[in-house]
C-alpha cells in the first residue's frame, strides 16, 4: 500500500475517532447523569490521539527504513537464484535488478534470471507493503477502540491531552539539540575515520594539499596529501580582504545612520542595506566570477600587474559587500543603544559631533561592535557559494591577494559533489574540514555572543 494512501485513511480514521469520542462522552454523561470532568471535545481529542499518533509514528518509521527494507527484499529475491548461478553473475544480477527497481518499469532486454528475480522482488515487496499498511491501520483502529472504551464522565481527558501537548512541545524543542548532536556526531565519526588514515598532525600542520588519490597503489602520489594549512591561509586571506572592505564601509554607514541621518533617510537606507543581506549568495558568486574578476584582471593588465582570473581579491571584495549589512545593522543597534546622556555630556563640554562619536559613543559601543565584527568574520569563513564560484581550486600557499587561493568550503564542495565512495581518504577529508570549520565558527560565535551580552548588561 502506498504510504500516502495509508496516511489518508489514518486521517479519516482520526477524524472519525474525534467525533466518536466526543459523542460517546456526551452520551455517557447523559446516561449516567454525571457531569463531564473535561469538556466533550477533549474526550474527542483523546480518542483521536490514541488512534492517530501510534500509527503515524509507525508509518514514519517504516518510511524512514524503507530503503533498508527494499535492500533486504532485493537480497531475498536474488537469494532464490543463488543456487543456480555462478558467483560472478550473482552480483551482476543484483546490479541489474537494482536498476530495474529504480527505474520502476519493465526492463526490455534482461535475462530470464533478472526477470524472475524482479517478479519475486515485486511479489515480496507488494506483500510486505500490504501487510505493513494493514498492520498500521489495525493499530489505528485498535487505538481508537481502546481509547473509546476508556471514556467515562470521570476521565480527566483534558489533563491527558494537555500532558501530551506538553511533551510534544518539549520534543520539538529537543530537535534543536538533536540537530547539534547530529552535526557533531556525523562530523566526528567521519573525521575519526579520516584521521585513522591520515594523522591529525599531518592534516593540521601539513603545507601541501592535493587530495586526488591515484587509482592504483603503485602510482605516484598514491596516497594524496592532506596538509590543510594552504586552505586555512586561503580562507584567512579572503576573509581578511572581505573584512577590510566590510568593516570600514559598514561601520561608517552605521555611524552615519545612527548619528547623522534623519528618520526619513534611515527609513529608506536601512531596508536598502538589508536587501544586500537578502540577496542569495549564489548571485554574489555569479557577480564576482563574471563581473568583478574580469574587471580586476583588466585593471591589473592596464597597470602591468598579473591578476589571476580567480583572484582572492575578487572573491574577498564581493564577500565584503555581502557582509556590509551584518556589520552595519549590528553596529547601528549597539550605537543607538548608547544612552543619550553620554552624548549630551560630551556636547556640554563643547565637543563637536564627530569628536563625541569618536571619543564617547564609539568607545562605549566598542564591545558590541567587536561582537558584530566577530560574527561577520564567522559568516565570511563559512560562506561557500561566492568562493566556490569565484575563488580557485588549486591550493596555493600565498598571501598575495592577486593570486588564486582556495578555501576550506571550496574544498568541501569539490570533494563531495559528484559520485563518491565513502571509504576513501579523499571524501572523508571533507568531513575533517567540515569539523574544523564547525569548531572555528562555533568558537567565534560563542566569543561574539559572550562579548555582546557582557556589554548589554552595562547600561540596563
Amino acid at each position: 500500500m502506498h504510504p500516502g494512501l495509508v496516511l489518508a485513511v489514518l486521517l479519516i480514521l482520526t477524524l472519525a475517532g474525534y467525533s466518536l469520542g466526543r459523542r460517546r462522552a456526551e452520551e455517557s454523561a447523559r446516561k449516567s447523569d454525571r457531569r463531564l470532568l473535561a469538556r466533550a471535545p477533549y474526550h474527542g481529542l483523546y480518542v483521536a490521539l490514541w488512534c492517530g499518533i501510534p500509527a503515524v509514528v509507525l508509518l514514519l518509521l517504516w518510511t524512514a527504513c524503507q530503503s533498508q527494507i527494499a535492500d533486504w527484499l532485493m537480497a531475498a529475491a536474488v537469494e532464490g537464484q543463488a543456487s543456480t548461478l555462478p558467483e560472478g553473475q550473482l552480483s551482476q544480477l543484483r546490479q541489474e535488478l537494482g536498476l530495474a527497481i529504480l527505474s520502476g518499469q519493465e526492463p526490455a532486454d534482461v535475462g530470464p534470471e533478472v526477470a524472475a528475480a524482479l517478479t519475486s522482488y515485486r511479489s515480496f515487496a507488494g506483500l510486505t507493503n500490504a501487510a505493513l499498511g494493514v498492520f498500521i491501520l489495525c493499530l489505528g483502529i485498535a487505538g481508537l477502540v481502546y481509547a473509546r472504551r476508556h471514556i467515562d464522565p470521570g476521565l480527566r481527558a483534558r489533563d491527558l491531552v494537555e500532558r501530551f501537548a506538553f511533551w510534544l512541545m518539549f520534543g520539538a524543542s529537543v530537535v534543536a539539540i538533536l540537530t547539534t548532536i547530529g552535526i557533531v556526531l556525523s562530523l566526528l565519526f567521519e573525521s575519526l575515520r579520516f584521521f585513522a588514515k591520515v594523522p591529525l598532525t599531518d592534516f593540521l600542520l601539513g603545507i601541501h594539499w592535493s587530495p586526488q588519490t591515484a587509482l592504483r597503489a603503485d602510482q605516484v602520489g598514491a596516497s594524496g596529501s592532506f596538509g590543510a594549512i594552504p586552505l586555512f591561509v586561503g580562507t584567512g586571506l579572503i576573509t581578511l580582504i572581505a573584512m577590510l572592505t566590510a568593516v570600514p564601509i559598514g561601520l561608517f554607514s552605521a555611524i552615519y545612520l545612527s548619528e547623522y541621518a534623519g528618520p526619513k533617510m534611515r527609513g529608506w537606507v536601512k531596508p536598502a542595506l538589508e536587501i544586500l543581506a537578502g540577496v542569495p549568495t549564489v548571485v554574489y558568486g555569479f557577480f564576482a566570477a563574471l563581473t568583478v574578476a574580469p574587471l580586476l584582471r583588466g585593471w591589473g593588465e592596464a597597470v602591468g600587474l598579473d591578476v589571476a582570473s580567480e583572484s582572492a581579491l575578487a572573491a574577498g571584495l564581493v564577500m565584503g559587500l555581502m557582509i556590509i549589512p551584518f556589520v552595519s545593522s549590528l553596529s547601528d543597534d549597539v550605537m543607538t543603544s548608547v544612552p543619550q546622556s553620554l552624548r549630551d555630556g560630551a556636547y556640554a563640554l563643547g565637543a563637536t559631533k564627530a569628536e563625541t562619536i569618536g571619543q564617547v559613543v564609539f568607545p562605549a559601543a566598542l564591545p558590541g561592535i567587536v561582537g558584530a565584527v566577530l560574527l561577520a568574520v564567522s559568516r565570511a569563513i563559512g560562506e561557500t557559494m561566492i568562493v566556490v564560484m569565484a575563488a580557485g581550486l588549486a591550493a596555493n600557499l600565498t598571501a598575495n591577494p592577486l593570486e588564486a587561493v582556495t578555501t576550506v568550503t571550496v574544498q568541501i564542495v569539490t570533494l563531495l559533489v559528484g559520485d563518491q565512495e565513502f571509504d576513501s581518504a579523499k571524501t572523508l577529508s571533507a568531513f575533517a574540514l567540515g569539523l574544523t570549520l564547525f569548531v572555528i565558527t562555533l568558537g567565534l560565535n560563542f566569543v561574539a555572543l559572550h562579548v555582546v551580552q557582557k556589554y548589554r548588561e552595562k547600561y540596563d
Partner: protein
Amino acid sequence: MTELTMAQRRRDSIDRAEKRLKRRRRAEARFRLYGLLAVATALGFLAVLISMIVVNSIPAFTQTVIGLEVDFDPETIDPNGNADPSVLARADYGGLIKAALRETFPEVTGRKEKRLLYSLVTNGAQYDLAKKVTADTALIGTRQKVWVAASDRADQLYSRIDRDDVATRGDDETLLGWLRELQRKGDIVSRFNTTFFTSGDSREPEQAGILGAIVGSGLTLLVTFLCSFPLGVLAALYLEEFAPKSRWTNLIEVNINNLAAVPSIIFGLLGLAVFLNFFGMPRSAPLVGGLVLSLMTLPTIIIAARAALKAVPPSIREAALALGASPLQVAVHHTLPLAAPGILTGTIIGMAGALGETAPLLMIGMVAFIVDIPAAVTDPAAVLPVQIYLWADSPERGFAAKTNAAILVLLGFLILMNLLAVLLRRRFERRW
C-alpha cells in the same frame, strides 16, 4: 606696553582658537562625508549589482524563431499509413526540417555549408515537430509554415544584426547572409521567450527553461515549511510559555542561538551523512533538500516566534488564567493567535532564506542535470539557486543571459515573499 601685549596675546589666542575651531569643523565635515560616502558606496554596489543583472538578462526574455515551409511527407512520417503513435513519434523530423532549410536556400550545396545551414535551427526543433504531428495527425501530407526556435548562435547573431561588428568567427558572415535573407522575407522574428518559463533544463541554451527549477524550489520549500513551521512554533511555545528556568532550558536556548550561526554548508554535511548515507534517502530529491533546509531554518523560526510571543503582554495571559483557563488554553486560545502575525512574518523571512540557499543542497547531490519537471518530492529536481549555479558554469554564451534572467526570477520571488512579510506586519501587528 603690557596692556598692548595682553590685548595682543588675547587676540592671538582667539585667532588660534578660531583656527582650531575651523580645523575641528573641517574634521567634522570630513567625518560626516566619510559616513555619507560609506552609505553611498554600499547602495552604489547594490544598484550596480541589480542593474547589471537586469540589463544582462534582457536577451533571455526574447527568442528568435524562424518560419520554415515544412513538407509533412507521409513517406517519412507515417510509412504504414495507419497513424500509429509509436511510429509517428520515432519518425525522422530532423530530416524534414533539414529538407525545408535546403528548400529555403537552394543555393547551398557543399557538405560543410549544409551543416552550417542546419545549425541555424535548434536541435530541439524535431521534438516540437514530433509533438505537433502526434497531436494533430491531419498535418501529415500537408505543407505548413512552422515556426521553430533558432539555435543559440543564430539567436546571438540575429540580436545584433544591425550592427557592423557582428561577425567574429570565420563563417559568421555566411550565417548572417542567410539571416538577412530570412529577415527580408519576414521569416524570422523575435518574440517573447515562452520556452524559458515552460520547460526544464537543457544542454542547449535556446531550449533551457526554469520551470523545472521553480517547481523543484516550490516542492523543497513545501517540505521545509511542513517540517520547520510546526516544530518551530511548538518549540517556541515551549521555551517561552512552559519551560521551567533550568539549566536544561538554558542549554536549549544557547544551542538554538549557536545553530542559527552555523555555516549552511555544515547542514549539508549533516544531510549527506544522516539522510543519504544512514537512511538511504534518494539523492537530488526535494524531500531531502527540504529536510536539510528545515533544520537550517528551524532556529530562525524559533527565534522569531519567541520574539513574537514575548511581545504579547502578560496581562492577557493573566486575564485568561484568572478566568480559569489552563496554561495550554491560554497559549492556544490567546497568546498564539495574538502572536501569529509576528510568527508568520518570521517564518516567511526564514523561508526566503531557504529559497536562496545553495551550498547545503550541493552536498546532497542537487546539482544533477535534470530535464524533467519534478512531480513528487522524491523525484530528482533542481532548485532555482542551483540552476543559477549550473548555468553560470556553462560555457555557452546563451546561458549567460539565462543565468541573469533566472537570478531575476529568484530575486522576484524573494521580493514577493519579503513584501508579504512586510504587509503582514503592517496589517496585523499590534502594539500594546
